[in-house]
């Protein structure tokens, strides 16, 4: 890779953010979709846990634990979808060759998608967290500073998965699009969103600990149930995320190069 490939321009990143902002602004169904699913799921989990909590012997704080787990899972899922959706918009509109023959660097494109993921997540999640306060008395923001650590670690993982999925779509076409929607669910049972890691069989626990979100969900339970902030878990998640982001970036760049070798850049579609 020569020096010109590594040059970085905030203007070009801004251009891509502007492009996706124009799109969001022009389409109320897209904006509504950002809030709709998180809100529906939050209500479903909230009422379910209110129901469970009425049974004799139910644990105090069950609602808070499950709602926190749901909202943090949603950050992970929506972060990845936010990244992948912005990427897929380029594929659906057959605009990708226009971008790839422009001076836009792959890393600038990726950074723009990361920023758009945060924008989309904010549009979707902030109203839903407010609804959780109003309907269930659960204040995610009340988790305070630890929330920032949870939030950052989950987003890092979501972007690395988004980068990998986007690379697959670039290389294999829109036939691989369903992976962008479903891959994160592979991590749902393994990252122990709703139960402790010790619930898993012994042999699978090392794999679970290799996934950064596992440490976040364990840390969340420690905070909500025991009121203890586990900095060690957050540092572990952060260290893993450095590896995951490196792997995500490398996989996207490699798959982009593979797409250019296979000629799939000329056959954007299925």
């Amino acid at each position: 890779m020569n020096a010109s490939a590594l040059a970085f321009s905030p203007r070009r990143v801004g251009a891509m953010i502007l492009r996706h902002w124009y799109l969001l602004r022009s389409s109320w169904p897209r904006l509504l979709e950002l809030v709709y699913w998180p809100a529906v799921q939050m209500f479903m989990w909230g009422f379910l846990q209110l129901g469970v909590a009425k049974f004799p012997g139910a644990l105090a704080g069950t609602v808070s634990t499950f709602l926190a787990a749901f909202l943090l899972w949603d950050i992970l899922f929506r972060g990845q979808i936010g990244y992948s959706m912005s990427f897929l918009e380029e594929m659906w509109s057959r605009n990708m060759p226009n971008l790839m023959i422009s001076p836009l660097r792959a890393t600038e494109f990726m950074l723009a998608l990361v920023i758009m993921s945060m924008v989309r997540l904010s549009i979707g999640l902030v109203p839903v967290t407010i609804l959780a306060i109003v309907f269930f008395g659960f204040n995610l923001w009340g988790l305070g500073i630890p929330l920032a650590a949870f939030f950052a670690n989950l987003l890092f993982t979501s972007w690395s998965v988004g980068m990998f999925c986007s690379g697959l779509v670039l290389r294999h076409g829109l036939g691989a699009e369903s992976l962008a929607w479903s891959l994160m669910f592979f991590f749902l049972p393994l990252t122990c969103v709703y139960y402790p890691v010790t619930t898993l069989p012994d042999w699978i626990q090392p794999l679970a600990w290799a996934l950064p979100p596992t440490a976040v969900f364990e840390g969340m339970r420690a905070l909500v149930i025991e009121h203890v902030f586990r900095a060690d878990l957050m540092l572990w998640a952060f260290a893993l995320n450095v590896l995951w982001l490196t792997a995500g970036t490398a996989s996207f760049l490699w798959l982009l190069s593979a797409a250019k070798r296979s000629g799939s850049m000329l056959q954007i579609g299925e």
Partner: protein
Amino acid sequence: MSAPAIEAENLTKQYGESLAVAGISFAIRTGSITGLLGGNGAGKTTTIGMIMGLVLPSAGRVLVFGADMAREPYRVLHRMNFESPYVDLPHRLTVRQNLNVFALLYGVADRHGRIERLARELELREFIDRPAGKLSAGQKTRVALAKALINDPDLLVLDEPTASLDPDTADWIRGHLERYRARKNATILLASHNMGEVERLCDRVLMMKRGSIVDDGSPKELLARYGRQNLEEVFLDVARDRREPMPTREAAK
């Protein structure tokens, strides 16, 4: 004499068992309009893809303004642009928004002035604030051309620029391309199935078949060589193997 705008050296692309481009070599003079002709599957689009850096060659290389497009495309991408009916602009964005985004990507100075100028020259004003997806085929082609001209490129690569246009709009686009070349001394590479268009616009024609360049010359030279009245007949001679492929200029040297 100035260096060629495009130089292909033994340019080859193999997709599995299929040889899409079979080691072609050519040089395209700066300021010329060159037509790339050939039937479907002749290798034109793959060749264009390699020139634009969208496809990596299996062997050989292509230099654009001296930069190897497989290794250092960013040295020259700001001086090039591209239009193809197989590529689109985001439908929900207005024409102005699309042009604004690409003007930013290419670092166009005075981008609002540039967009206004293009809107005037390409007659986009009437629909510049309309979503790109709601335009007619002719309007879309003009917008695609505006996007391709947004950075005032030294090299313009056009893949069937007048496909599916009515004769009036197509003629108008050709006139604009001629004026652009004359004003800018730009190099234009044009893949087209419209032989009248190629005859009118091109200084030189590269004829491709099964991944190879089978003939090369000005439209007049090709007509004389094949003893035909128009390029369409020449095209059919080549496509149907009615004449032996002539040696290319380079091979003849």
